[in-house]
């Protein structure tokens, strides 16, 4: 900041009769905005009339503030309580966790069956993801679809909210039944990425539905019937799942534009 203007200049600034050129007046004004000491000097060099006027204004402003409504208190934004998504997802996530619990129980009763938790792991996040990005389940979707924040980032945030519940549940169920942790969590992530990648073209809801049905028919049913764990779930396959996850996630990232309009397919 520049140096303080001289007291003489401030006195001339405050005196309306004094002749102060515009450029100097501006520079004093700019300085006064930031300097409390010089403002005090200006206040000292004003007349008594001005001071009484200012005091009167200050008193009436104070009075109006006291008489008016109290300012809105800043409440702490409670995400868990206020977010629509949280309430909407509770029943679906409860169902997912309950199904996984049943799989663990069934495994304990019938140890000869192939690992049910592993078989269900890929489809476990799909109901939640489908609900999180669906115009039928989001009442404000039309409002949201027109905002700049709508897009892949928002879908990923909502997906993360689903995974926060599903992944620990899967990990717990996996350790209970002795299933490989990598072969439980990796397919879960792969199918989530696949849902988003496919959802760019047909909508997330249809993508989740299609992938869920395909997995059930192609892998779960044959595995239960033959009581043999399919090849895709054998211990050696985890690098393939990992690669597939990365490839699908990368592909989904290139299709970000398709999620700009929430209404495209969902």
């Amino acid at each position, binding site marked *: 900041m520049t140096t303080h203007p001289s007291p003489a200049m401030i006195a001339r600034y405050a005196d309306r009769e004094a002749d102060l050129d515009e450029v100097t007046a501006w520079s004093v004004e700019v300085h006064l905005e*930031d300097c409390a000491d010089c403002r005090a000097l200006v206040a000292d060099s004003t007349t008594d009339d001005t001071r009484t006027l200012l005091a009167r204004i200050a008193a009436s402003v104070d009075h109006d503030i006291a008489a008016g409504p109290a300012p809105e208190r800043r409440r702490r934004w409670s995400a868990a309580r*206020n977010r629509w998504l949280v309430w909407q997802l509770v029943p679906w996530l409860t169902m997912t966790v309950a199904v996984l619990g049943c799989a663990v129980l069934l495994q304990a009763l019938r140890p000869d069956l192939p690992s049910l938790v592993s078989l269900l792991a890929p489809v476990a996040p799909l109901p939640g993801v489908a609900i999180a990005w669906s115009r039928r389940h989001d009442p404000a979707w039309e409002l949201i679809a027109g*905002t700049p924040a709508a897009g892949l980032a928002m879908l990923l945030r909502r997906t993360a909210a689903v995974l926060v519940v599903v992944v620990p549940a899967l990990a717990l169920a996996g350790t209970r039944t002795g299933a490989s942790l990598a072969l439980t969590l990796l397919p879960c992530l792969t199918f989530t990425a696949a849902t988003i990648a496919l959802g760019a073209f047909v909508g997330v809801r249809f993508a989740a539905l299609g992938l869920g049905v395909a997995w059930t028919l192609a892998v779960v049913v044959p595995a239960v019937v033959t009581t043999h764990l399919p090849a895709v779930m054998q211990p050696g396959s985890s690098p393939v799942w990992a690669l597939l996850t990365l490839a699908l996630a990368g592909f989904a990232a290139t299709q970000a534009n398709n999620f*700009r309009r929430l209404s495209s397919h969902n």
Partner: protein
Amino acid sequence: MMRTVSAAETAPTIHPWAVHAEGLRVRAGRHLAVDGLDLALGTGVHGLLGPNGAGKTTLMRALATVLKPAGGRLTLLGEPVDARANLRPVRRALGYLPQQFGFYPRFTVREFVEYMAWLKEMPKTAIPGAVQRAIDRVGLQAKAGARMKTLSGGMLRRAGIAQAIVNDPAVLLLDEPTVGLDPEQRLEFRELLRDLGVDSCVVVSTHLVEDVATACTDVVMINEGRLVYQGTTDDLVTQGGEGDAGDSPAERGYSALLRRHRAAAGR
């Protein structure tokens, strides 16, 4: 407090029209609801009139960038809004009140408007002030702390208007904003419209010719997805004669235009 004025704020506008459509076609499901529409709208309040099924809502949704145009060109604030465009900068300058406007029932009015302001990517420090201003402008101060599910229809509509204007949009799209408002609120709303139309492009879709006649500077009439008429409100009044249906000059003008258009289309 001093603040830095960014170059974007002082940059002159280089687009002639805030909303510019050329041969615009938009699908509603399989049906082509907007079919070859040419439209150019600048600053002011534009009333969008038309019979039921004319394609008003579909047009509004396309202007709000919610629907992807099936063909033609649509430019908002000088930026093309097609399948490949980056919609983000345009959407920051948009305000939209849908016809059927859903909301999260557990949110209070203030939380709802705040949430929308956040989705519109307003700077965090500007949000509380902007939210209060928007709520003040629609006259919902007394209900700011009430949950959305406890509001009446007219109040909900006003909360919807508040979220639409919270970011001081350059293009404001209001689809049937006066539904559920009582006569006094309608008058206040018209006042608000005139105020908003001073420096932004406001498009109001409505069935009520009276709203257009009193609050809009400009009338756009569409039927079956095509432009029927565009002109000033005074012009609309002069279109009608004594023999036309309607209780006011503007209504007579409206029905005369529609009748003439239908006769021309039937030939």
